[in-house]
């Protein structure tokens, strides 16, 4: 069983997104290079695009965002291969209906898409382990915990990098799609 890998860039962006909006639900998509697709399924996640932190229960902004991101990634040789989300409540790890529906949509267009839940309890100033819960789609609307392990691209160095970004306050410069809608000069691809 092949393991999945997530790049430092993608992982750090996810952590920065969570750090920037600790009191909100956040979500975003994961990207994979077309060359990293094996049998049409993603093996490595090269980048992440942070989407929303406001009103995550409403469908308008994710719809626009997914359409925009699909437009960009096609040209860049990547595909949308996953969806990540985190809850505002520290202890909450469940997959809410909304995230599941968006992930279903992504899975319709991409085999082997993953749904990643951030386990907020495992995040800390000095991150010890990746804190990601990965699920795979088994059927329409059903996401099961993945048997594949999700590795970090550079293991402990990735973790140290993410910790440093939070410590130095650099996460404040991350732009997500909601920020972009408030000021379209801001680039959500970062």
């Amino acid at each position: 069983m092949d393991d999945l890998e997530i790049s430092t860039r993608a992982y750090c962006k996810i952590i920065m997104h969570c750090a920037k909006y600790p009191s909100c639900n956040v979500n975003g998509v994961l990207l994979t290079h077309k060359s990293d697709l094996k049998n049409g399924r993603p093996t490595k996640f090269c980048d992440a695009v942070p989407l929303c932190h406001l009103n995550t229960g409403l469908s308008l902004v994710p719809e626009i965002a997914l359409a925009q991101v699909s437009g960009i990634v096609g040209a860049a040789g990547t595909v949308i291969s996953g969806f990540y989300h985190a809850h505002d409540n520290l202890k909450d790890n469940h997959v809410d209906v909304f995230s599941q529906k968006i992930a279903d949509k992504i899975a319709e267009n991409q085999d082997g898409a993953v749904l990643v839940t951030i386990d907020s309890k495992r995040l800390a100033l000095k991150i010890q382990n990746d804190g990601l819960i990965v699920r795979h789609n088994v059927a329409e609307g059903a996401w099961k915990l993945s048997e594949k392990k999700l590795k970090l691209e550079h293991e402990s160095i990735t973790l140290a990098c993410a910790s440093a970004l939070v410590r130095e306050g650099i996460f404040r410069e991350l732009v997500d799609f909601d920020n972009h809608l408030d000021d379209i000069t801001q680039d959500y691809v970062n």
Partner: protein
Amino acid sequence: MLQRMSLTEVKDILKTWREDNSRKSDEIIEHWEDTIREEIDDLGEEKWMILEQVCVAGFDTYRPDVVEDTLYLLIQQFTPSSLRVKRLIAMRYEMREEWGEALEVLDQILEEDEANSSARKRKIAIYKAQGDTSKAASELTKYLRVFQSDQEAWQELCDIYIQEQEYNKACFCCEELLLHNPHNHLYHQRLGEIRYTMGGTDNLENAKQYFSQAVKMAPSNMRALYGLLLTCTQLATNPKCHKKKDYAKIVFWASKQISARYNHAGLTDKQSKLPVIEGLMSQLDVSGK
């Protein structure tokens, strides 16, 4: 790291954040550590408000050390019998997740002062933190029967209902907000988004009206422009639709506005923006004019 600022500049920023009710807790702690802590006695009349602000920021960022420093000074000045100080003591229990103790202190405040809205709101916040959203919602509803003009509460209830997917109730809350603020384009846009999420022709028609109103008030509201675009596209591509031409006109207008905004922002080289609109336009063509 924030640049070192003078005490006056820091005081002004903190005042702005107090007035706007901004939640910039980690920045407040940084200011405390860089500037304020050494110069507490020079803070003048705002000293106690600033200490309270820093204390709350300490709760938000889990800094028991900051909390102890600030709360100590506040208790010394105002004694623990002050209701405002009691609320902070309750929040300290909240920070430690000692929910029972926190609720006890809040109940004490309410015994002394039944109309104390901030204590009632803290209780609701505790239920939310415990994950008991239905209890939070029912307490908030009870609260709003008494304090009907508390907009922060209506917003919070609206958010809770959206998360629980009780969109009809969320609409009701948002409509209350609109009653209080009929000229706020953000509430029109929010209602439009809720109606759009609910789906169905009637709701989409409704959404279109709210988005149109939002755009009329604030032509630069991107969410409202996109909202108009997507809503009218969906309405136009509905096989039972009788007003295709009218919706199509709105779609073209909205897409022109969006393109113009991107051009204006100097993003003409980002060809990526156009495929979205082209995709939607082609949907209209396919359905037959």
